[in-house]
């Protein structure tokens, strides 16, 4: 029974965090590509605000979404509070600035000549953008994995928006918080180590998969 609950918590952690990382990456990488190649007024401020949001506390994001999603909140009619969907939205908000920040740095490091070379050989703007993303694929992967790691290891959003409902929204971090609150510190530490190994395994799989394709 304990193992079933543990497996359920691991599954919730992986599913919600992976979905959040995938959606956030799909938004963040094109945004970072735009920021790295476009020049516009206020760009410095956009980057500064993004850097600030990279350090946003999870409970603040949790609290903000809690007000929006709670029964009397502006989005209360959707009934999303204490669901895995709410946890996912919260994690997207949490990791979006992180992936934008790291992806921006990764894309900036790709030689500006990569884009110009692609254009000079007849690529469309979209094809040239794809070339830049391909050239920066390893650092971009690090950006996405950093976002995933942040999502899977956070507890504030999962607790406030998921409610730590057993068998439904309880994930590894909320289980650790619960076990610690009960005074079961050994269980908490074991779960913490398990979380680290889980992240290590996912990082290894993604890296090996990408290298074998290269």
């Amino acid at each position: 029974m304990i193992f079933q609950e543990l497996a359920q918590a691991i599954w919730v952690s992986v599913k919600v965090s992976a979905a959040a990382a995938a959606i956030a990456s799909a938004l963040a990488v094109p945004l970072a590509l735009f920021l790295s190649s476009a020049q516009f007024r206020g760009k410095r401020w956009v980057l500064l605000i993004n850097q600030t949001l990279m350090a946003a506390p999870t409970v603040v994001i949790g609290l903000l979404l809690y007000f929006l999603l709670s029964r009397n909140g502006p989005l209360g009619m959707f009934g999303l509070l204490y669901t895995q969907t709410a946890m996912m939205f919260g994690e997207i908000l949490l990791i979006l600035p992180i992936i934008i920040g790291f992806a921006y740095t990764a894309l900036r490091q790709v030689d500006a000549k990569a884009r110009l070379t692609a254009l000079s050989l007849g690529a469309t703007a979209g094809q040239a953008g794809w070339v830049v993303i391909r050239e920066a694929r390893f650092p971009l992967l690090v950006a996405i994995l950093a976002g995933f790691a942040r999502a899977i290891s956070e507890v504030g959003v999962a607790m406030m928006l998921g409610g730590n409902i057993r068998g439904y929204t309880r994930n590894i971090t909320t289980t650790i918080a619960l076990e610690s609150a009960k005074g079961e510190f050994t269980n908490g530490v074991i779960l913490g180590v398990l979380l680290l190994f889980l992240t290590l395994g996912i990082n290894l799989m993604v890296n090996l998969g990408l290298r074998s394709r290269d």
Partner: protein
Amino acid sequence: MAVKAYELKDIRFGYPGSRFELEIGGLAIDAGTIAALVGPNAAGKTTLLMLLGLLHKPSAGAIQLFGQNPWNEGNRLFLRRRELAMVSHNPYLFKGTVFDNLVFGLKVRGISEKEWKAKAEEALGLVDMSGFEQKPASGLSAGQAQRIALARALILKPRVLLLDEPTANIDASLVSRIEALINEVNSRMGTTIVFSTHNFSQAFRIANEVIYLSEGKRVEYSHENYFSGHAQSDGRVSWIEPKSGTKIFFPGQFSGHLTCVISPGKIKIFSDEQKKELAGPNLFAGKITRLEMAENDLALVRVAGDLNFRINLPLQELKKKKVALSMQILVKFPPEAVEVIK
């Protein structure tokens, strides 16, 4: 009347945060010819090539490519770029193999994959690199990378080929092969070729037209404005002697055979009466032997004497100094105005 590959009018372009600005009053390059852009570092050669390659948009003025303004094409600009191919002097090769690089242009044009292999082999043969298809692009030397970049452009059979210092990283033994290839591509396929170089003799050897740039502007140069000779140095300054009894001084220590260019913008003209007030190196006497209107309120002045010059000067300045044909004048330029080409 010859078809113009390019017609540029009153072009201006500057990089954000940089003082450098390219200003080209007028420039026309006939289709099917070879044009060389010559000038010292930071003259604007690469920037002009980027404008010709439609990779930078001029901030003012108009570029016509085969009679049409490509910047009016909006989202279809890439179709006009597909008439061109550009090779930078320090080219960027994409990650992957040499083959991946060679076929990039074919891929984006949607050319059938069946044709890639034969075309890649042919292009590699042109640059003497057959058998390099599967080598990783990151392991190539600078010279090999430059030849692969050239092959990557040639595979596309463009109407216009833009080459930024095409022999800069190439071994001396292969320079003549690349020069012959440039001529061959031009004569066999009718490709218009514009290339930049520091090498005067290469420019005159290959090109139908030599365009000289200095400090972002097109300048009128003639053979009289550059000098070849044996340089000597006394440890502080150097000089060459293009004509018996005439020494041109310039800073630094050089010895051996050198070619120098004097920037026309730094040449000052004085009346003969001012001789007593003037002193120092690089002061020469001469006579105006030709004076005619040039573009943009400039006058072409030929001075014959100790040194022979053909330079453009603003009409206003000439009027102010009351310069007239057959007048004896003094020509002076600081040693810093002398640029060593090789």
